[in-house]
């Protein structure tokens, strides 16, 4: 399924933040987790995740730290901050409103 670009972009922030709530992670693992969660329906261009992560870092929603990975190379790990959690909660409410509204109208269409 081809997702609309705008929708992918809009969902990126809550998705990344929600995945980081599960635990600290790094770019490649986040993308794998997204694919896993969406059953492969949400396909990001891999590189595009990094500008998103850097923007979140600048906004203070996530914090980053370079540390050694299991293979010996340095890897940049991201951690959600308190502001990030607050932002995620706010976004969650917004998405629920959208989701609820759409659900309402589509249920009506089904029963009508």
């Amino acid at each position, binding site marked *: 399924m081809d997702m609309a670009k705008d929708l992918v972009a809009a969902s990126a922030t809550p998705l990344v933040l929600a995945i980081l709530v599960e635990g600290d992670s790094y770019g*490649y693992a986040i993308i794998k987790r997204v694919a896993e969660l969406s059953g492969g329906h949400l396909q990001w261009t*891999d590189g595009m995740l990094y500008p998103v992560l850097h923007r979140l870092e600048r906004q203070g929603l996530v914090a980053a730290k370079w540390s050694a990975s299991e293979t010996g190379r340095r890897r940049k790990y991201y951690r959600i901050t308190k502001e990030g959690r607050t932002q995620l909660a706010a976004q969650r409410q917004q998405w629920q409103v959208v989701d609820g509204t759409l659900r309402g109208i589509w249920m009506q269409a089904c029963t009508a």
Partner: protein
Amino acid sequence: MTTFADQSLEQQIARWREYLRRRQAFHGSDIEELEGHLRDQLTALTEAGLAGEEAFLVAVRRMGSLDALSREFARAHSERLWKQLVIGHDAADESTQAGHTEMLIALGLAVAAALAIKVPALFGLQIDGGDQPFYLRNAGVFVLPLLTAYFIWKRGSGVAGALWLALPLAAGAVFANIYPFRANGDTERLTALHLPITLWLVVGLAYVRNRWFTDGGRMDFVRFSGELAIYYVLIALGGFVLIAFTVMLFASIGMKADWLIGRWLVPCGAAGAVIVGSWLVEAKQSVIENMAPVLTRLFTPLFTVLLLAFLSTLVWTGSPINVERQVLIGFDLLLALVVALVIYAASARDSQTPPDFFDRMQLLLVVSALAVDGVVLAAIAARISEFGFTPNRVAALGENLILLVNLAWTAWLYARFARHRGSFASLERWQVAYLPVYAVWAAIVVIAFPPVFGYR
């Protein structure tokens, strides 16, 4: 993130990293992060059974196009392009150390230039007193050796190269000072004007190192000179603001800051700014679009219109050109400006592309400049007997001739190019080959004119 046993795969990764590094939007740590991702992806793909080559293609495809990626990075880090202007490199970049050293050396040389201009004051020569001509004659001698030293260091030219360049610089210092110039004489003023032009060629030799005849080294130097001029004007504007505030602040407590400005701020600032400006041009290379070609595009049509308007008015009214003292020099400057417009348009042009509207505009500009100059020369030739030969007039006439020859041949090459008979590259070659002519003429003015005209 493993290192792959597959050598060709490692090479491909290295090449990909190089592509990223060439983009200004990525910094060292971004590249490391993206490379880590690529390696993770490659590991997963090879474990899934793909061969090295295939795995690499898939992984790079998934990473997305570099254009789109660098655009997104630039958007997420819009401050970077500006920061690079001054800082030079990323904090996490491995070349930081080199950039830092360069900044220290450049600032050190700038301070040295500012101090060098104050050395004669130790021997009682004051810049705002009767010794002003001394300072004007030696302006290039104070600063340009230090600029040359900067490029010798930067290009790693070595001791032998440095000595060869020191020779003409020393000769410049000698010729600026051995002649018994008459006070307020023309020859002294001519030396002050022409010596920097000659010494600028030495700076150029240091700048290009051994690329003078190859790889567009001379064109790079032309580009550098134009950018430096623009930076210098910008720094000077800042300097004026500084001076205005200095005056205002000290005036508010009833003190006159004239000596501070005249003896320290202006001379030291003017000297140091040459080095700082050069360093900025070097540091920001390729980060933003060069300014000189942009200005050229802007002003070529305007100057063409001006010259055509002047010519048609001349023909319409038939009023004779008033050949006064300053007129010849004014027309020299006009020709020099037209040559500069041609050179800087050429410096930014891809010599492969066919002639377009702008090229015809340039041809028109060159031809109208030639026509204007022809009229002026005719007017002067008609009255030359009344003038007699003064050093000023001979120098100005010589320069006029040099520029006229350049522009005439330029017009010929341009016309051939516009009619698809010749290549643009030949025009570019002509312009850079002509560069030493200016320096040689300036050297003749400095060395031969004072004795020939009796130091008057």
